[in-house]
């Protein structure tokens, strides 16, 4: 059903006019989330205009916008914004494409389908730290990794993933974890596709490709919007995978905004500077939220 449409005249006419006080139901959630947002935000805002380094407690005082000035002066900021965009964008594309293909594939009847599905969704249950460690040490390691071994069997020079293709490597790991999530949701959606509708299309002489593009894909479009929205929320703040594999490097090749803030806040303990970064991230998050939710919800209403 429509997700963010304010009213629903068709299904709930009687409810609309009834006088009900829903405040006690709704307010606890709003109150705790508001506190959760506003208290740290206020503190962060305050820290962002003072000099506050955990390691040098004797340096204090109001500095105005100096932290922000330093931040905007830092070339790493722009790189990190771009990297965030690349990371989120490519993982979204990969997960939606593969999620859709997998959903179509595993919706077919074949022996052992239940078990095969379990195997495909498994990566979603694995802790991000663990999956990053496994990929880094056992799959992509240029000396002991399985990929390197396969390459050497074929007589190819083993790829040094985290030095030469750091961003690609990180994207692969994150996509591996999130494809199953997209798959789960899209499979749910595809199962609700009317078999009669499919039969009718087949009788009309539609081939499998035409079926996919004219029947399945439009049917999935709302589910795809949902996948994009949920994943974006999580991908914007991706951290553990970068922490374990590349630590934002080499150079700033895999530094996203979350990592940049981490590196100034918790590797350099410059709380003032990190707070300025945090504020930038909040502003950005809200822009994305508005933009994204607007587009997604429009898409949801159309379908």
């Amino acid at each position, binding site marked *: *059903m429509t997700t963010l449409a304010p009213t629903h005249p068709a299904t709930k006419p009687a409810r609309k006019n009834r006088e009900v006080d829903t405040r006690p139901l709704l307010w606890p959630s709003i109150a*705790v989330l508001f506190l959760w947002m506003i208290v*740290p935000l206020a503190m962060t805002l305050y820290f962002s205009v003072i000099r506050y380094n955990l390691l040098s407690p004797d340096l204090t005082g109001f500095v105005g916008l100096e932290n922000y000035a330093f931040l905007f002066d830092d070339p790493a900021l722009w790189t990190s914004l771009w990297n965030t965009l690349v990371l989120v964008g490519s993982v979204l594309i990969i997960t939606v494409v593969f999620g859709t293909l997998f959903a179509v594939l595993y919706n077919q009847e074949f022996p052992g*389908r239940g*078990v095969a599905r379990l195997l495909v969704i498994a990566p979603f249950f694995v802790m991000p730290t663990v999956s990053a460690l496994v990929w880094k040490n*056992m799959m992509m390691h240029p000396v002991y990794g399985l990929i390197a071994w396969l390459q050497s069997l074929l007589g190819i020079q083993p790829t040094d993933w985290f030095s030469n293709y750091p961003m690609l490597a990180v994207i692969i790991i994150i996509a591996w974890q999130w494809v199953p999530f997209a798959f789960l*949701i899209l499979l749910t959606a595809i199962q609700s596709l009317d078999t009669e509708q499919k039969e009718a299309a087949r009788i009309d002489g539609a081939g499998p490709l035409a079926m996919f593009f004219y029947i399945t894909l439009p049917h999935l479009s709302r*589910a795809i919007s949902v996948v994009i929205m949920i994943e974006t929320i999580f991908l914007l703040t991706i951290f553990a995978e970068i922490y374990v594999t590349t630590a934002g490097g080499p150079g700033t090749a895999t530094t996203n905004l979350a990592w940049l803030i981490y590196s100034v806040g918790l590797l350099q303990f410059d709380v003032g500077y990190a707070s300025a970064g945090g504020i930038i991230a909040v502003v950005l998050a809200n822009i994305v939220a508005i933009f994204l939710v607007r587009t997604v919800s429009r898409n949801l209403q159309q379908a």
Partner: protein
Amino acid sequence: MSDSRQKLWLTILAWTIALLVFFPIFWMALTSFKTETEAISTPPSLFFVPTLDNFTEVFARSNYARFVWNSIAVSFGSTLLALAFAVPAAYAMAFFPTKRTPSILLWMLSTKMMPPVGVLIPIYLLFKNLSLLDTVTGLLIIYTLINLPIVVWMLYTYFKDVPGEILEAGRVDGAKPMQELFLLLIPLAVPGIASTGLLSVILSWNEAFWSLNLASSNGAPLTAFIASFSSPQGLFWAKLSAASLMAIAPILIVGWMSQRQLVSGLTFGAVK
């Protein structure tokens, strides 16, 4: 191509992909039964005498039971708490929508988009003053808050799909919203609530930033357990694999057992 031939190819393709996707987890599980030198040998050793030494060592070095208990308490506790907050809220927004409902939902989701690193120090200081550092309660509160927006949203979309007529028909005259919620809606929406809860449990179980920074021993869940086995001196892959397997096995089993549930409940309102 005949139908059975096509089916054979389909089966092969589907299984090949499934095995490839699952392979890293399988390989990790396999490695946990190897010795350290076998774990890094090239070419990889496929035939070896399995050993339980890694597990013995992992058990000897850390209090696994405490970590698991903390993980269970934190992820299930925070999920129940989030549901307690979210079910009424989602009900109110789904059945008594106002002009502001979309903005409230949007705002709730936006609280999730800020990188947690940005607010760690403020939260750390707050937790210190409230004596919540390194406690299960502290993590429980954090996880409840970070999962609440998603839980509200999932439930909202699920509730919207519940046909109003059913509630209408079953409604006792003069029922208060609370009664309607508990007597009519919740029994109807069990599958949606259950899959929402499952997703929240999975996300909490795997959360690694807050747990590593706010808890170290008494309140630390399995993510901290993993951090004590990653990249130490010497050979560590077999031990790390054993520890990883122990950390993901519970949630993997829960997830697999409830896969059917997840597939039918994770609709996010997108299915009709």
